């Protein structure tokens, strides 16, 4: 079959898209809304996953907490010895952490670490110090290294404050007293959510801030030997310490994503409803649901069009509508997420205090999300229009034309 014939059929198909412009517009608009919604959620989801992964990469392999009557309680330092005695455990170090008001109602995560042990762990959060600063000194107290997010937060406050290496800030301790700290370094992190608002200090100073006694800590951070099985080590710890709650990286990842997924599920439901409406509309307007479209197929067959010609026309129509809807939908989602920061949707999905996220949402455009958007917009429309057309095209033209 010659190229001219294909060109003619494509021309006819494009003419049909224009001819039924109201139907085409409604289908494209429906696709734009559903694809925008889908992609916005997926870009955020992929960003959250990446952010979480980055954060977990910088964190310990296992975190050990203690539960008392089902509630989290302080961990006795004696546990450290028990955990360290396990063969595969490389480092077990106590942490004292809590949340602290930054002065404008926003909470910072202040974490006290054993500086000697912590600074030896390659890639741990807070150890990648930017420019002129340094990490905490094991012999000093009252020092801070802060995440870039804190610098951004202060800079973008209503009354901007520029802080950096050498700045002195005061934090409020558990008794309401002001405790002076000196910032000795600013660290960078791949995470924009989980580690972005973090402040690191020595464990002694953290104990003073939060009123934690010297024989206890908030949790134990555990790094295991390369190649060891995290779940096996976690099982041994869990068996050795009956009051413990042992969280592996994977467990934290699952728990964090679960809270996100429950929100995203509702958006997904909404997206599905919109897409189904579009598909039903396409189906109703196709040769199955519309007398006019059905007769058109019968007429084309009567005038000498092969079944494949009819399918080619309907396929081109569907692809044009599907790709227009998908392209504009994806573009709108990019603008909505990356330029406007996904207003309302991000708050609903993430549930965190996004004011902290001065670096913007953690967004990722993944090939899977884009491919998925094309797939869910093109394939259903294709099926909803081509299959009814095919059914009519293989029926006797006389029966189709006369509606027999």
């Amino acid at each position, binding site marked *: 079959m010659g190229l001219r014939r294909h060109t*003619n059929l494509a021309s006819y198909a494009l003419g049909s898209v224009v001819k039924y412009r109201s139907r085409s517009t409604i289908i494209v608009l429906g696709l734009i809304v559903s694809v925008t919604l889908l992609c916005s959620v997926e870009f955020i989801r992929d960003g959250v996953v990446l952010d979480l992964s980055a954060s977990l990469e910088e964190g310990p392999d296992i975190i050990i907490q203690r539960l008392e009557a089902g509630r989290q309680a302080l961990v006795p330092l004696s546990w450290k010895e028990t955990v360290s005695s396990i063969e595969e455990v490389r480092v077990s170090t106590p942490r004292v952490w809590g949340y602290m008001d930054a002065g404008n109602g926003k909470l910072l995560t202040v974490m006290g670490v054993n500086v000697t042990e912590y600074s030896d762990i390659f890639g741990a959060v807070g150890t990648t110090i930017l420019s002129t600063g340094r990490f905490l000194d094991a012999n000093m107290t009252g020092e801070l290294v802060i995440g870039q997010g804190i610098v951004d937060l202060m800079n973008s406050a209503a009354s901007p404050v520029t802080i950096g290496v050498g700045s002195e800030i005061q934090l409020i301790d558990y008794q309401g007293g002001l405790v002076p700290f000196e910032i000795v370094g600013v660290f960078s992190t791949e995470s924009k959510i989980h580690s972005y608002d973090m402040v690191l200090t020595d464990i002694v100073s953290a104990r003073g801030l939060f009123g934690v006694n010297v024989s206890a800590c908030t949790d134990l951070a555990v790094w295991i030997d390369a190649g060891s099985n995290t779940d096996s080590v976690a099982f041994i710890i869990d068996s050795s310490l009956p009051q413990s709650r042992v969280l592996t990286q994977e467990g934290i990842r699952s728990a964090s994503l679960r809270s996100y997924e429950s929100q995203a599920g509702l958006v997904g439901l909404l997206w599905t409803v919109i897409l189904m409406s579009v598909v039903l509309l396409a189906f109703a307007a196709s040769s199955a649901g519309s007398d006019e479209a059905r007769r058109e197929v019968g*007429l084309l067959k009567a*005038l000498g*069009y092969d079944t494949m010609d009819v399918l080619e026309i309907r396929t081109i129509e569907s692809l044009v509508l599907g790709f227009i809807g998908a392209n504009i939908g994806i573009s709108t989602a990019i603008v909505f997420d990356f330029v406007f920061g996904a207003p309302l949707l991000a708050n609903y999905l993430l549930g965190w205090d996004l004011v902290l996220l001065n670096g913007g949402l953690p967004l990722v455009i993944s090939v899977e999300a884009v491919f998925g958007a094309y797939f869910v917009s093109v394939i259903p429309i294709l099926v909803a229009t081509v299959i009814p057309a095919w059914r009519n095209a293989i029926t006797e033209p*006389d*029966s189709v034309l006369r509606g027999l």
Partner: protein
Amino acid sequence: MTEYLIQAEGLWKTYGAGGPRQVDALRNISLEIERGKCTAIAGPSGSGKTTLLSILGLLARPSRGRLSIDREEVSQVSEVFRTRIRRENIGFVFQAQYLIPRLTAVDNVVIPQLCTDVSRREAGAAAQKILVQLGLESRAEFPVEQLSGGEQQRVSIARGLINSPRVLIADEPSASMDDVLITELLSLLREMSNQRKMTVVVASHDPRVLDWSDTIYSLRNGELAEKR
């Protein structure tokens, strides 16, 4: 020697076969259509004229019987082959016209050529030429729903003629036309029939069309009642 283009033998068309609403639309029809001549199928409404035209035009298959075009049996051949025969040899003028709304007259007329290797421009030029012959040059770019019933009928005729078919099958082509237009149409069809050796098969109960025909087959209740 008389040369027949279409030969039908013992054609039956049954709808709802075996069911409580079984209808024999055609019963044992045998006829011969002479090449290059104008043949009319006459009969009252419901006599089976449209069904017979559909079978002769390969739009429907007979339930029983044989149909040959150019001495080739076509009632049982594949749909692909029947489609090709329709595309290359048969033009249609439907009673209900089946023009595609929102398309212009010329866009409707070119439709049969879009599934061929003729370019859109050539098809458009051919359509314009036929529309001129049918007195529609000033209405060529009008959407068909803005045309009168008679104009729509002529667009439908132009569409049936654009592929220069060997057979034109027309169901009530004179409907919605005044006397002058009917006379012009019949004279045009006769001229094309003579020039191109085009065979015309017309279903009609219009006396002017019947008078114009070379042969008339009359149907009554799905049966062939008379040949003149």
